[in-house]
């Protein structure tokens, strides 16, 4: 893809255009706002697709139709729901802590949006190209629980408090194995920069060329991140049948809507991290083998045949990494939905047992094995 147009060309072109007509600080400000809006809009479109997808997946897995009344196959159901939420009153209970109660949803939304900053969406398409990208995301995503604790505590409701406490215990434990499985890949790639990790997978995704330990790390990461998103089978923080709605029992209207949105944004972020670390982010599929058929396949995947085509067609290839990025994103999201609608909810003791007796020891052993692989040079 050397001769083709890159995202960095586009961004440089916009930068030069803006610089030619206004002051540097203004250019900086405008670029910040435009980039942030673009990222948030892209994510919101994903969330809309995810909500529709969740309802359809849930329906079909439970032998139902899913939404099919508002619009063609229920496509406009979400918009009807949003209008309903906007029209409803955001009610604050009398004995609730008013300030914390109002701040909690906003805070958790901000935290989950912050995690978007170092994500690499495509080659050269990254908001904040930092060398501590993955570390930043792990640090930020563990802060999400503060919003939940705040909501549970300030509602002055026993269900909300119980849900929040469970969520705290859950996230504190599952952060460990999620972190360890991330470290596995960081050790293999040798960098914390998200773009760098993706570059290191140009000759095969880590889940393919990292042998068994990378597959183990992938499975452990998927389990732990499902738990971090508070999604079934780890949705103890909400647990409809026991705690009404858990930490957001007392929320109504758009404040509830924000928590709902938040769940999907978290899922999106987690899926982006998983696809960055294990499935090669925006890298197309690559077979790490050395025989002619594999080479031909890899050339097609990398759009080699387009190099000789006229320049205006190569604009199309700009979308190719995005197709892969979002494809992997929705693949992992489908996995998480599949789990949610298949498995029953765990009890709190089973949940902690799963983490401390199974996932954590296994991921430590896994990390040691990966370290041995790297020292002995066994990986591709």
């Amino acid at each position, binding site marked *: 893809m050397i001769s083709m147009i890159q995202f960095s060309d586009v961004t440089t072109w916009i930068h030069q255009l803006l610089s030619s007509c206004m002051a540097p600080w203004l250019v900086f400000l405008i670029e910040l706002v435009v980039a942030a809006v673009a990222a948030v809009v892209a994510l919101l479109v994903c969330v809309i697709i995810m909500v529709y997808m969740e309802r359809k997946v849930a329906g*079909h*897995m439970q*032998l139902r139709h899913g939404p099919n009344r508002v619009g063609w196959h229920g496509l406009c159901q979400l918009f009807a729901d949003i209008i309903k939420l906007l029209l409803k009153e955001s009610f604050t209970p009398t004995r609730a802590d008013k300030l914390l109660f109002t701040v909690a949803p906003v805070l958790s939304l901000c935290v989950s949006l912050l995690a978007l900053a170092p994500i690499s969406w495509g080659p050269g398409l990254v908001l904040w190209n930092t060398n501590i990208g993955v570390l930043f995301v792990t640090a930020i995503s563990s802060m999400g629980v503060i919003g939940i604790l705040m909501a549970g505590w300030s509602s002055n409701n026993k269900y909300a408090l119980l849900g929040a406490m469970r969520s705290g215990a859950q996230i504190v434990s599952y952060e460990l194995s999620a972190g360890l499985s991330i470290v596995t890949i960081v050790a293999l790639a040798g960098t914390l920069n998200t773009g760098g990790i993706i570059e290191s997978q140009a000759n095969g995704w880590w889940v393919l060329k990292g042998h068994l330990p990378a597959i183990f790390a992938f499975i452990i990461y998927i389990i732990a991140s499902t738990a971090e998103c508070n999604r079934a089978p780890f949705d103890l923080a909400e647990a409809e049948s026991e705690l009404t709605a858990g930490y957001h029992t007392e929320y109504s209207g758009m404040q509830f809507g924000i928590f709902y949105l938040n769940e999907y944004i978290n899922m999106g972020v987690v899926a982006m991290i998983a696809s960055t670390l294990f499935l090669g982010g925006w890298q197309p599929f690559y077979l790490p083998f050395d025989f002619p058929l594999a080479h031909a396949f890899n050339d097609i995947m990398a759009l080699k045949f387009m190099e000789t085509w006229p320049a205006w067609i190569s604009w199309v290839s700009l979308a190719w990494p995005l197709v892969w990025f979002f494809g992997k994103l929705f693949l992992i999201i489908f996995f998480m939905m599949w*789990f949610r*609608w*298949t498995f029953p909810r765990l009890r709190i003791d089973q949940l902690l047992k799963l983490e401390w007796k199974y996932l954590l020891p296994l991921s430590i052993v896994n990390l040691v094995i990966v370290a041995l692989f790297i020292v002995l040079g066994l990986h591709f």
Partner: protein
Amino acid sequence: MKALYNYLKEVAFAFVSLANGLLLTLKYFVTPWKSIITENYPDNRDHPSVADEFAGEVILIHDENNEHKCTACTLCQMACPNNSIQIISKQVETEDGKKKKVLDQWVYHLEMCTFCKQCIDACPQDAIKMINSYELSCFDRSTLTKVLNRPGSKLKEKAKVTPKVQE
């Protein structure tokens, strides 16, 4: 060593059983045309698929001669847990001068019926049954009180029991 083996076995078994569940839901997901059991109710009103066993309203069975089998024994009335049935009988005189109790009105209060099927089980004559009707709501409560025996219907004569010829 044994403990480690058991530990790993447990993990492996867990994955196998989880995979079983996942495969089942995946099968449902990829073949919705086969697996979905929800009825698109108001849309398929002209060709609904309701099971024959579905317990809707109670009817008194009438044959082609407008005869039913109810002897007005009131067992169904007594079996009904919420008094949805009223058997009103009358005395008639037969040709040979005997007085006989026959059914006058079989009153069914659909508005109180819980579709529990106990009346059907109680009836010694199998005179009543439940049909699979389900669009039972209406705007006027009084229309739900029905007389089930058709006008002019009468008790079916018992077929004469012919003694078996011994061989």
